[in-house]
C-alpha cells in the first residue's frame, strides 16, 4: 500500500480551475467572433489571430527569459487578452500595429505589474488605449460591415457613436436599431453585434463565471443617465437615444467582457455595483461632453485604478453584524 496522504481539510475541491474560467470567457466570445467574421471577414480573422499569437508569444518569452520562470500560457489568460484586444480594434488595422498593441498589453499592462493577478489595469484595455493615443487615425477608421467581406481595404464610414456625437436628431432617429442588434454596423469588429454579446453574457451567467452585478449596473446607468440628459428633447427621442447608447460603441463588449475582468474589478457585490455605476456615468460623460466619441475604454480604465479603493471601503457583509433579528 502507498503511504497515506495527510493534509488539512477540506479534502475535496469544486473542480473549477483558472483555465476553465478563462476558456469559459473565450467560449462566451465565440458568437461575437462568428458575427464579426461574417461582417468583417478576413480582416477580423487576421487581426484576431495576430493579436492572440503575439500575446501568447510575448507572455511566453517574458516569463521564460525576462522573469526566468515557468511559463503559464496554458491557463488561457494570454489568449483571452489577445481576443479582447482584437475585438476592440478596427478590422482593417495594419497588423504591425496589432503586434505593438499586444506587446504593450502583455508587457506593460500585465507583466510589468507581476503577471496574472497582480495587474491593476485590464491588459487588453491598456493595449487598446495605447494604440488609440499612438495611432489615432488608424484606430478610428472604421470599415463598413459587409457580408462575407474578403477585402482588406473596403469602404469606411461613420459609426453610430459618431452620429450620436454629431447630435443631428433626424440622423439619429433614422438609425436602424435592428441592424445594430445583429451587428450590421460600423465599429471595432468584436463590439458590433449586441445579440451575440448578450448570448455570451447568458453563457457566462449560466456557467457562473461572472455575476450580473457589473454588466447590469453599467448598462442600467448608461441607459438612465443618457435618457434623463436628453429628456428635454421629448421622451420618445430620449428613449431612442438611450437605447442607441447601450447598443453602440463598445458598451456591451466592455460591460460584459472587459469590466468584469476578475483581476481588475472589485471583490464584493456592493463594490461591483458601485464600480459599474461609476463606469456608466464616466462613459456617458465622455461620450456626450468629452473629446472622444467613445468613453467606455477610458471609463473602465479609470475605474480599474479606483478598484483597490473600492475594495478597501466596500467590505462584504459579515455574519453577525446585524446581531439580532437582522
Amino acid at each position: 500500500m502507498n503511504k497515506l496522504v495527510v493534509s488539512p481539510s477540506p479534502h475535496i475541491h469544486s473542480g473549477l480551475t483558472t483555465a476553465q474560467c478563462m476558456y469559459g470567457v473565450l467560449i462566451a466570445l465565440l458568437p461575437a467572433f462568428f458575427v464579426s467574421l461574417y461582417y468583417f471577414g478576413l480582416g477580423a480573422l487576421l487581426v484576431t489571430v495576430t493579436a492572440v499569437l503575439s500575446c501568447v508569444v510575448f507572455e511566453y518569452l517574458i516569463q521564460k527569459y525576462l522573469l526566468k520562470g515557468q511559463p503559464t500560457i496554458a491557463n488561457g489568460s494570454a489568449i483571452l487578452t489577445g481576443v479582447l484586444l482584437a475585438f476592440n480594434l478596427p478590422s482593417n488595422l495594419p497588423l504591425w500595429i496589432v503586434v505593438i498593441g499586444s506587446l504593450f498589453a502583455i508587457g506593460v499592462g500585465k507583466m510589468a505589474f507581476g503577471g496574472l493577478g497582480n495587474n491593476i489595469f485590464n491588459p487588453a484595455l491598456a493595449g487598446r488605449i495605447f494604440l488609440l493615443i499612438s495611432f489615432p487615425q488608424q484606430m478610428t477608421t472604421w470599415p463598413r460591415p459587409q457580408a462575407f467581406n474578403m477585402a482588406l481595404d473596403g469602404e469606411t464610414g461613420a459609426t453610430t457613436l459618431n452620429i450620436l456625437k454629431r447630435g443631428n436628431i433626424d440622423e439619429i432617429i433614422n438609425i436602424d436599431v435592428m441592424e445594430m442588434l445583429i451587428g450590421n454596423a460600423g465599429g471595432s469588429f468584436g463590439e458590433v453585434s449586441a445579440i451575440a454579446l448578450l448570448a455570451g453574457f447568458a453563457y457566462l451567467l449560466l456557467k457562473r463565471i461572472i455575476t450580473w452585478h457589473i454588466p447590469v449596473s453599467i448598462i442600467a446607468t448608461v441607459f438612465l443617465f443618457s435618457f434623463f440628459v436628453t429628456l428635454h428633447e421629448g421622451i420618445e427621442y430620449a428613449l431612442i437615444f438611450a437605447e442607441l447608447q447601450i447598443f453602440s460603441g463598445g458598451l456591451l463588449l466592455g460591460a460584459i467582457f472587459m469590466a468584469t475582468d476578475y483581476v481588475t474589478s472589485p471583490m464584493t457585490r456592493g463594490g461591483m455595483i458601485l464600480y459599474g455605476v461609476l463606469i456608466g456615468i464616466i462613459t456617458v460623460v465622455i461620450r456626450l461632453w468629452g473629446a472622444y466619441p467613445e468613453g467606455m475604454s477610458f471609463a473602465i480604465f479609470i475605474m480599474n485604478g479606483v478598484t483597490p479603493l473600492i475594495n478597501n471601503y466596500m467590505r462584504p457583509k459579515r455574519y453577525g453584524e446585524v446581531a439580532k433579528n437582522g
Partner: protein
Amino acid sequence: MKTFRIGGVHPSDNKLTAHCPITQAPLPSQAVVLLSQHIGAPAQCIVEKGDQVKVGTLLARANGFVSANIHSPVSGTISKIDNVADASGYNKAAIYINVEGDVWEESIIRNDELIRECQLDSQAIINKIDEMGIVGIGGATFPTKVKLMPPRDMTAEVLIINAVECEPYLTNDHALMLAKPDEILVGISILMKAIHVERAYIGIEVNKPDAIELLQQKVQSYTGIEVVPLQCRYPQGGEKQLIDAILRRQVASGALPISTGAVVQNVATAHAVYEAVQKNKPLIERIVTVTGEQLSQPGNYLSRIGTPISQLIETAGGLPEHTGKIVLGGPMMGRATANIDTPTSKGTSGLLILPEEQSHRHEPSPCIRCAKCVSACPMGLEPYLLSRAVAVDNLEIAEEHHIYDCIECGCCSYSCPAHRPLLDYIRLGKGKVMNIIRNRSTEKKQ
C-alpha cells in the same frame, strides 16, 4: 425554502450510504478509549492497569465544568494507560482495554421499549446528561450539559435540532432518524424540558425527504416540535448558519449562540440524551458512516467508541488497493490520518476512504481575484485578503479583518479556481491572532 443568508457552497452529495440501515459492527478485540474526546479539559482517569470493567463502567471523570465523563465502551481488563495518536495526529492519553465478553453494567436498560414519560425535573435531567458523559456528537463534541446551562443573563427561547448533515458522504444522522424517530423526539422533549422552552425546530436538508416525511408524521404526537426542511447548502450544519437559516438571527462576533435565544443540539445527541435519561445508558457507542467509492461494503455502522478505525474499515470490506487518504469525519472539515490504529471517539461521525487520485492537492497558481472565496465565505470574510496577510505575517491586517470569526468550514479553499490553500493560511493566522488577543486581555487584567 429556508437557508442561511451569507455565502455557502454546494458540493456534490455523494451520500453513498443513504439507504444503508444501521448495522452492528463487531466488537473490537482491544478498545482504546481517549481521555480527551470533547472540547475542554481531558477527563481524569480513575481506573488502573489490571482493573476489570464492564460496559458502562466510569473510566474517567470530568475534570472541571467544560469536560465530560468517559465510560467503558466494552467489558474486559485494562491492559495499559498509554498515549495514542488521535485524529489530530498528536499523542493523547488513552485507556487500553482488552475485550472479554460483553458484560454490561446492570443499571443500563438494554431493551428497545420506548419510554416516553420522563419524571425528572430540569436540574435532574442536566445532572443525568452530565453523569452519562453526553457531548455534542455532531462533531464539535462540546459537553452537552454546558450548553443546557446558559449564563445567568441569557435565557433559552427555542431549541434547534441539527439534523442538517450538510457534509458530503455522511449519512449517520440520516440513518438514525429513519431507525429511531420516536427515541429522537423523546430526547428532544427531554432537552426542551431541561432548558424550559416550548418550541423546538428540527432542521433537515431536503436531500433526506424520507427522514423529513417520517419525522413530520411522528411530531404530531409531540407538542412544540416542528420539522423545518432546508435547502441543501454547505455549511448549513454550522451552529451559526443553522440559527440564521431557521430563526433569521445571527450570533454577534465573539458572542455565545445562546445570545440569540437558541440552543442547538445535534439530532444524534438528542438520541444519546434519550438513552442517557430514559435508559441510563452512557455514551459508549455511536453510528459511524464508513464510506468511499472504492469500499465494497460501505455503511452506517453502530460501533463502540474506541474501536480502531482499521477494524471498521475491515468491517466495511477492507482497505481498497489504491487508497490515498483516510479522513475521520466528512470531506469538508474532517481530519486525515495516516495511522490506521487511530481509535474512534465520541465525535467520529464518519470514516471516508479516498482513492489515490483524489488525495492530492493541485499545485496552487496565482490568485486571479475572482472573488469566489468572498462570495463562498459563510462568515462574510475575505479569505483572499486574510490568507495573503498571514502569508506575509501581517497579523494586524488579519485581526482587523476579523480572522478570528473564521469557522474553518473550508468553503474558500473548496471554491478557489487557483487551488490556493486559503484555509491553511487562515487557520494558521487565526491561531496566532487568537493568541495575541488572549495575551492582550491577560495583560490588561494585570
